[in-house]
């Protein structure tokens, strides 16, 4: 069966070659899309078959039988493969119609296709890597290919800057990972993941390894305060790529963190607590920064930070569960984290693809300039709405389900751990509730400003191609399915956890709650809705009239509420923390001048840490002017000086 996966992987290469060779570009595009989707489907089938077989699998079977030590498919890897392939298929499908707008730039499109198919490949190999060097190679390749993919519109200033920041920041993460793996190799004398068994009894090496691991993977995952690259990279990437970035690539950071946790046994309690605190911090501030944004893709990028935070909370709970060996908590924590990883991948991909459609039709990313889209494409709006409700963690969609698990985890931990943990858990749960509330505000904001009301800037037509509808439809239906019938995934997740934490016997997930009750509730909600709608249908006396404007009848689109003013109520509460800058000119005189209100927030980690650090180093560099002398006599004297210095060392050298 492993040949299935081999075939899948090799197909990506074929796709890349096809993208390079086939003329004209139009055919190349469609053929590559078909090949890639096929390959992804094959890998998806592979992952599913393995995962279903997982409970009775006793041994790890090598992916490539001849390199047994390099690649292996354990539960976690397979689960992430499932995630990747599931969201990659719609992404690739929508790529087809996205690239239609760029066909005139043939070279760019070709390079995008090549790098994208190689990106898919490297990401899938990454999760299977069992050898540190292989892992690093896949990791860097992933970065490289993502970077090359971002260059689709490379002539734009912002694209250059954003991709540059992405490239350098992720490279920094890689440098941390070098140290991480070297330390491991130094200590265990092996590169293979399966030989790494850390324990806090090792002293400093343990702290070092964990520190570097979390740093490296945390930068990639975008935990605060290491998140600053996301809001730069996501907006400038082409929509399918930014969907993949946010849906999958930052999840590889999560995957890495899972691996780090797997290496450590027993897990110390402080690790769990630190993860929890950092995560809830990123969740709250991620969503709050998102609330201050008016650039749709930047906003979504900040939401990725928020959701990474939520996933992190799950992981933290799981770590606590392992360190206190509470099986139910382990399941709820890790299960919630994995499930939310999957869900976030789904609805974030949906939202980013949708944003791509919007940006192409409105020719802007600024939501203040949009509006009234619902009158052009109500089905599209419906799909986007599903994604928005799901990401706000509201039932009956999948986002709620994973948060539900995490909440259960809080209660469970509080009940099981006792002493001060209930307090912590309560605070965390309130934090999560707060995040939910803010997310709700944020997504009501973007939906109502972008879609509802009337157009703020003229919008002739809003075209959504059939492929885009297919992609969005697939994702939306997944949102609904996992929301209403979560059992479909939970079984897999619990087998994955059982597999990867062999020490702990996990009870069946059914014992945590009556899942069918949830289904009943959601179904009954839907039924009620249907009933009432039908009832409304019968009573037909309706009429269309102008909106009521307090007697004022000449309403213009500019009189609508803007995103800034909508979010202002809540933002001004924390305006100091967010470095919120408002520019207001209110009408004063008897005959008021035109007035306006703008607000935007500075990212604190960028403003406070990164930029000053960079500036400092640049200043230091300027102070080495003397090295750039041009007179040859200086060079000669340098030689003399160095000889004397080395001589001095030789003289003081101990015999």
């Amino acid at each position, binding site marked *: 069966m492993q040949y299935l996966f081999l075939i899948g992987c090799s197909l990506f290469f074929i796709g890349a070659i096809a993208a390079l060779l086939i003329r004209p570009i139009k055919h190349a595009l469609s053929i590559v899309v078909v090949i890639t989707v096929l390959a992804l489907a094959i890998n998806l089938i592979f992952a599913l078959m393995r995962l279903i077989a997982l409970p009775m699998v006793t041994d790890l079977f090598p992916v490539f039988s001849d390199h047994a030590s390099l690649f292996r498919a354990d539960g976690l890897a397979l689960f992430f493969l499932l995630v990747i392939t599931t969201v990659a298929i719609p992404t690739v499908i929508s790529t087809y119609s996205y690239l239609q707008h760029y066909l005139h730039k043939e070279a760019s499109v070709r390079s995008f296709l090549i790098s994208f198919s190689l990106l898919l490949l490297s990401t899938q190999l990454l999760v299977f890597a069992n050898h540190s060097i292989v892992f690093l190679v896949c990791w860097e390749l992933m970065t490289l290919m993502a970077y090359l993919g971002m260059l689709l519109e490379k002539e734009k200033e912002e694209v250059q800057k954003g991709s540059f920041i992405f490239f350098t920041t992720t490279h920094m993460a890689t440098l941390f990972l070098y140290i991480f793996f070297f330390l491991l190799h130094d200590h265990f004398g092996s590169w293979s993941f399966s030989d790494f068994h850390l324990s806090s009894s090792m002293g400093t090496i343990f702290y070092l390894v964990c520190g570097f691991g979390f740093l490296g993977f945390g930068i990639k995952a975008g935990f605060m305060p290491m998140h600053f690259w996301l809001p730069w990279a996501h907006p400038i990437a082409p929509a399918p790529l930014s969907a993949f970035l946010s849906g999958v690539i930052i999840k590889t950071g999560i995957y890495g963190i899972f691996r780090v946790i797997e290496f450590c046994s027993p897990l110390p309690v402080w690790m769990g607590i630190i993860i929890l605190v950092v995560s809830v911090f990123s969740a709250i501030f991620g969503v709050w920064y998102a609330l201050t944004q008016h650039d749709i893709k930047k906003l979504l990028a900040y939401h990725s930070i928020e959701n990474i935070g939520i996933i992190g909370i799950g992981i933290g709970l799981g770590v606590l569960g392992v360190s206190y060996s509470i099986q139910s908590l382990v399941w709820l924590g890790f299960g919630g984290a994995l499930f939310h990883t999957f869900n976030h991948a789904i609805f974030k991909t949906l939202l980013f693809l949708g944003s791509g459609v919007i940006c192409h039709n409105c020719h802007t990313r600024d939501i203040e300039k949009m*509006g009234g889209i619902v009158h052009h494409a109500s089905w599209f709006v419906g799909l986007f709405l599903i994604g928005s409700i799901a990401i706000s963690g509201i039932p009956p969609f999948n986002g709620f389900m994973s948060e539900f698990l995490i909440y259960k985890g809080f209660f469970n931990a509080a009940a099981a751990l006792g002493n001060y943990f209930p307090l912590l858990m309560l605070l965390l749960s*309130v934090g999560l509730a707060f995040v939910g509330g803010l997310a709700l505000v944020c997504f*009501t904001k973007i939906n109502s400003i972008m879609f509802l009301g009337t157009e703020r800037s003229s919008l002739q037509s809003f075209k959504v191609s059939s492929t885009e509808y297919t992609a969005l439809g697939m994702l939306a239906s997944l949102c609904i399915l996992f929301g209403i019938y979560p059992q479909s995934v939970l079984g897999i997740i619990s087998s994955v956890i059982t597999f990867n934490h062999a020490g702990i016997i996990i009870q069946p997930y059914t014992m945590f709650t009556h899942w069918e009750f949830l289904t009943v509730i959601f179904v009954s909600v839907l039924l009620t809705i249907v009933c009432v709608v039908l009832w409304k249908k019968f009573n037909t006396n*309706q009429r*269309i009239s102008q*909106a009521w404007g307090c007697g004022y009848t000449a309403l213009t689109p500019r009189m609508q*509420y803007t995103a800034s003013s909508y979010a202002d109520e809540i933002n001004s509460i924390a305006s100091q923390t967010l470095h919120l800058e408002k520019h207001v000119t209110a009408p004063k005189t008897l005959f008021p001048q035109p007035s306006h209100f703008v607000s935007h927030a500075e990212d604190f980690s960028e403003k406070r840490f990164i930029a000053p650090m960079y500036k400092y180093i640049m200043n230091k560099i300027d102070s080495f002017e003397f090295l750039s002398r041009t007179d040859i006599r200086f060079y000669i004297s340098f030689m003399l000086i160095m000889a004397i210095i080395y001589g001095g060392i030789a003289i003081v050298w101990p015999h």
Partner: protein
Amino acid sequence: MATLIFQGLLPFLFILGVSPLLVGLINKQKALLTGRLGAPIWQPYYDLFRLSRKETIYASTASFISRLAPVVSFSVILIAGFMLPIGYVRPLLSFSGDIIVFAYLLGLARFFQILGAMDIGSSFEGMGAAREAAFAVFAEPIYFFTIGSLAFVSGYTSLYEVYLSIHLDNPSSLVFIIVSSISAFFLMVTECSRMPIDDPTTHLELTMIHEVMILDNSGIDLFLYQYSSYIKIMIYGIFEVLFFNPFSLHNQWLGFSLFAILLLLLSTVVAWVETMIARLKIKSIPQYLLFATAIGILNLLIYTFVR
């Protein structure tokens, strides 16, 4: 079987049937306290009947959202109501973790209300929606501080069981009851947009919150909105009242009648508060809510340190 029917029917009837009456009672008592005669307590029923037969007018800029929103909010709130115990009758949909589901279902309702308000694109409703959103952000923390803290203490995650776990006889839980009921009252005031957060009877758009959101709804839509707001009050009323039920499950009928009396008391309290207190300035509401959130934490501090 009989009990099952009873379990099924009672909440349905109670939630659907009695909630307008509760509002009627509140208004009547308010009128009396301000020395007016006031409308009959059945007035809400008349209103609902009237609205259900009026024609529905949609703004020219309205989309399917504003047709859908009232329906969703109504039905969601109705279903949420079925998760609460009436008296001590075990609710139909009660399972471990329904605390969370309850909170988030109401979130769904809010989501659609806000969208419905924003749909027209009129700035009045935008203003209302913005305020509603801003203040609703605090509702969930308060909720988790009140019910959630009890859940953390008791270790149950189902509303029914949480309420069962309350016993007046042990002093520490008495403290919980006092603190929780206070913050639950704040919660009710916030969620149902009563005084001092919002004045349901005001007629100046610029000062309204909930009322201004439904300016452009009429006929059946308005009917649904009104009805769901009545149900909401009832739900939060039950929420509040259940803290004070001294009876354990021995006698359903006794428990139920006491429950009714307590609801009556609550209506009086609400009416009294609304006559005594003036509406807060919009700007000062967040502080008020933060305060409400903060007192919730007392529960846990007590639990953690006094134990």
